[in-house]
């Protein structure tokens, strides 16, 4: 019979080994970094990686990608095919993640469409392909290829015998019941058509066998497929030996007896020995592995170790690695590559987590377990490095050591000795810098990092990493300006980038309004390390940065606006004046406001006008850490406001720069108790658990005293990384209060009605103080009832 006879490979993939989707992140989506990517970056960078050019090893990469690093560290090849396979969650069909790989059929969609061609077909809008298992689990029971086969068969039968014929209708009714069995244990086949033509009888026999398979009656299915294999007249004969084998394999996994496994293996052997080209013959290795996983795990692990130790990557490397990792997780053995992967990651194992869940540990049980795992990982990595001098183990130790740890000097020294032609060299250079930043001579560090950055073959991710380090030893502000920028990678809406992050973190999105263009557009921005440094500079240095032409206009605007907030807070009207000139160009939406400020004489009116800008730009802050860029029209500027509080000259508050952990929010989140020493703003925690405390460049250190003195006049919008509301400092000036006082005292001032409108808005969206919105509302409607601003404010909200 003509027509496609599809290999039921997806069935084997599912049979084979853990063929489910990778477990996805669930719950709300998360913001992710736009310049550090632990998944290898874009297509070009990944290709270089697969071709043997190992960059900085990212300890937070998925395990299969860490395995790529292991191979390259040991002189083993990867290549594009193996690299692609290992960079994709195993073991769904390739088309699941890559649209450039065509899907061979349309699965259920194609089937539902095809069956509409049969008149009076039962209405079927949806077919579930899974069965319920224990513990709320579902398992795949039917696969796309079964639907593709059914679609092709239906089209063939309809073409030959007529879509409206009773026989085709009977065929369809039976097939619908077969697919019911995908999910419904109670599915029942309709009676066979009396006096059915031969073709229908043959198809019915096949459908009955498939029905038994989906119902889990595997032995019965095997018997039926065996009968079809002997029926020379059946068009399904070529598939039958494979399907019989598959049914016996399924049976073995359910019955779990020696006889069942032996029967399945015998069937696999028969299939393997069948004439070359027999349908499904290519799946015998997978099916053997599938059984070995269950009844000979130790032997399978030994086989996999041998296979994965080969210099060339096998075509099945992703599936093999998946089994290898799963056997490790099941404590079948401790193969070295997995040992290394788990050590560099230093995360609790599933077994440890299970023990924790079942135990009676206190509220510190998990942090204590994490700390213990990390200590053990570092000790183990050092022991393996000392015993083997295998650079991979040095890399694992480096990833887990803090700069202040007693082990750090020796490990840094070892990192410094890694040869430049070693695949571990870049990783060693990164950690060498991280571990020696605090004490090494700045000029020497600059020189070494410049040599790294000169390499034309750095990946985007690696260049961003080394720029972050180099910026922290910048010789002066001008050099820092150049080094503060990071190139964007893996734009989440650009599938042409070739990035694979979306395969592993489908719900992660990059932030907006932080680049050199509006919204989500843009190709570069400040690194988080750079933002932290900029926030710790004195105003004078920041002013120069905000005018540095090396920095794109949008980012200069961000610096200028935070400078403006600082200047207002400091009462530095001269600096405010000069900033308004810059901001007329950088934020022209407020051009009139900037000019009005310059034109106003010093005194209450001047302050009022300066404050009006604070009211019109809700995201205005003194620090880039929590600043939100105004974009679009004034009405479109992003909420929320803060309650602006100033302190008079001579009455500074305790200076509290934003905690460095706050800048790391796009990487590994540290929680609100994390100290500055625990942060890693260069790699955002993705390179390993070893911290990388921020090193202020020398020019910034020189201005630190001034910066600290100035910060005494920046009342934090939040006093800590937790959520406790901030108490007002003594003699505090609440900006809205002063604006309301000016408004009452100067009712004819042309800016007053609009200012009141903005105070009402601020009161609604986060910036209320003592019902400031209500007070503004009352004054606006009493004094200016017919004004546009009153008409635009029908309510107050606080």
């Amino acid at each position, binding site marked *: 019979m003509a027509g496609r006879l599809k290999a039921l490979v997806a069935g084997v993939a599912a049979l084979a080994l853990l063929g489910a*989707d990778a477990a996805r992140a*669930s719950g709300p989506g998360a913001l992710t970094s736009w310049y550090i990517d632990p998944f290898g970056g874009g297509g070009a960078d990944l290709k270089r990686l697969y071709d043997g050019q190992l960059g900085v090893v990212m300890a937070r990469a998925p395990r299969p990608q860490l395995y790529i690093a292991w191979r390259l560290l040991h002189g083993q090849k990867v290549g594009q095919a193996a690299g692609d396979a290992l960079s994709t969650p195993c073991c769904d069909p390739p088309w699941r993640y890559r*649209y450039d790989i065509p899907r061979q059929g349309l699965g259920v969609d194609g089937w539902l469409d095809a069956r509409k061609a049969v008149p009076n077909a039962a209405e079927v809008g949806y077919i579930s392909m899974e069965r319920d298992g224990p513990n709320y689990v579902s398992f795949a029971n039917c696969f796309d290829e079964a639907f593709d086969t059914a679609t092709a068969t239906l089209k063939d039968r309809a073409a030959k015998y007529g879509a409206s014929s009773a026989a085709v209708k009977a065929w369809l009714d039976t097939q619908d019941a077969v697919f019911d069995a995908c999910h419904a244990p109670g599915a029942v086949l309709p009676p066979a058509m009396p006096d059915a033509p031969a073709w229908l009888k043959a198809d019915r026999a096949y459908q009955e066998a498939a029905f038994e398979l989906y119902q889990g009656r595997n032995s019965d299915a095997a018997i039926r497929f065996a009968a079809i294999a002997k029926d020379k007249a059946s068009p399904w004969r070529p598939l039958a030996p494979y399907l019989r084998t598959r049914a016996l394999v399924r049976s073995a996994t359910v019955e779990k007896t020696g006889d069942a496994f032996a029967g399945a293996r015998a069937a696999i052997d028969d299939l393997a020995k069948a004439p070359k080209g027999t349908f499904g013959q290519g799946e015998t290795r997978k099916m053997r592995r599938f059984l070995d996983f269950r009844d000979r795990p130790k032997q399978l692990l030994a086989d996999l170790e041998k296979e994965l130790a080969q210099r060339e990557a096998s075509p099945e490397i992703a599936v093999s690695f998946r089994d290898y990792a799963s056997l490790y997780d099941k404590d079948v053995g401790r193969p070295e590559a997995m040992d290394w992967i788990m050590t560099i990651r230093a995360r609790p194992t599933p077994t440890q987590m299970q023990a924790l*869940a079942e135990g009676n540990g206190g509220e510190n049980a998990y942090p204590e377990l994490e700390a213990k795992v990390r200590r053990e990982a570092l000790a183990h990595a050092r022991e393996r490095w000392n015993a083997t001098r295998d650079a991979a183990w040095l890399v694992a130790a480096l990833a887990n050591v803090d700069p202040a740890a007693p082990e750090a000097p020796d490990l840094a020294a070892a990192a410094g000795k890694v040869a430049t032609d070693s695949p571990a060299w870049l990783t060693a250079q990164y950690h060498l810098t991280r571990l020696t930043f605090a004490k090494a001579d700045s000029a020497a560090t600059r020189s070494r990092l410049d040599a790294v950055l000169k390499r034309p073959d750095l990946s985007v991710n690696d260049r961003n990493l080394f720029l972050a380090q180099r910026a922290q030893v910048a010789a002066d502000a001008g050099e820092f300006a150049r080094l503060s920028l990071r190139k964007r990678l893996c734009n989440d809406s650009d599938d042409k980038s070739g990035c694979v992050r979306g395969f592993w973190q489908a719900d992660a999105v990059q932030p907006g309004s932080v680049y050199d263009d509006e919204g989500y557009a843009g190709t570069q921005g400040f690194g988080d390390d750079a933002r932290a440094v900029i926030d710790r500079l004195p105003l004078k240095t920041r002013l120069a940065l905000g005018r540095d032409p090396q920095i794109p206009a949008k980012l200069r605007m961000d610096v200028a606006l935070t400078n403006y907030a600082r200047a207002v807070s400091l009462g530095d009207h001269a600096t405010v004046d000069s900033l308004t000139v810059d901001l007329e160009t950088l934020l022209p939406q407020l051009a009139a406001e900037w000019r009005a400020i310059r034109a106003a004489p010093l005194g209450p009116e001047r302050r009022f006008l300066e404050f009006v800008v604070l009211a019109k730009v809700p995201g205005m802050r003194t620090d880039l850490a929590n600043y939100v860029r105004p974009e679009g029209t004034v009405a479109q500027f992003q909420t929320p406001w803060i309650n602006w509080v100033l302190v008079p000259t001579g009455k500074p508050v305790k200076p509290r720069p934003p905690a460095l952990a706050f800048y790391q929010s796009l990487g590994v989140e540290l929680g609100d108790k994390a100290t500055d020493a625990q942060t890693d703003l260069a790699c955002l925690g993705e390179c390993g658990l070893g911290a990388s405390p921020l090193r202020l460049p020398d020019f910034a250190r020189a201005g630190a005293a001034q910066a600290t003195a100035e910060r005494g006049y920046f009342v934090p919008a939040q006093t800590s990384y937790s959520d406790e509301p901030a108490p007002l400092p003594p003699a505090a000036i609440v900006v809205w209060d002063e604006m309301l006082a000016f408004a009452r005292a100067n009712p004819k001032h042309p800016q007053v009605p609009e200012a009141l409108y903005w105070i009402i808005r601020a009161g609604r969206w986060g910036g209320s103080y003592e019902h400031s919105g209500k007070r503004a509302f*009352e004054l606006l409607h009493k004094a200016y009832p017919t004004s546009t601003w009153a008409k635009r404010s029908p309510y107050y909200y606080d």
Partner: protein
Amino acid sequence: MGRLGALAGLALACVAVGARAQPLTIWAWERPEDLRFAPADAEVAAQTGFIELSGNRLIVRGRRHPLSVAGNRVTTAVVHVQIDHRRPLAWTPERATQVAASVLRLGRRARRLQVDFEVRTSERPVLLAVLREVRAGLPKGVELSMTALASWCATEDWLVEAPVDEVVPMLFRMGPGGERLKARLAAGGDFANPACRTALAVSTDTPIVRAPAGRRVYLFNPRSWTAADFERVRRSVAAWPDG
């Protein structure tokens, strides 16, 4: 005298309810979970399904990781839906029907079906279409719940179109506006949207000092639960002032 503020606002007036316990519901997401430690008065919302709309393809699957839980503690079946933003979405009425049928099938094992579907502004019609179709097919007696970004409840009013019995604003991973919202709640305020006042969600790793009393509290843990995690967050919730 000016007009009083409308209900649609973040009122500082406290919620006037008597002291009563917040029903706690533990979210069991797609990872191995052993919740046998959960006390009798805690409920479980288990993710039982995953749906992805990827261009013109629909990927549907059930839960893959086991959930161990005592008795009939799972009162909510959660179906997570997401859109693959690497592909232009091919959205048709037929697809909406299929998605809804998938949701109903995957979420059929509890008395509350919760749809967890975070959408961008342009995708709101997709979410609403799914919810309408799910509502139409929901068995009698089953409640329909949805998770929501906190910002949807604070600053946006399109949620009135969602035909659900419960909206669960998530008070974590909220982005720049989140800190102010949490501070506002800490001061005794509430969500602007009245539809968001029957439930809320908090995370173990970003506790909040206060939230309006008397509503269902869903508990999120970024990692698999332990008894200690639950006890810590339970104490934190119990410490919220009443009213």
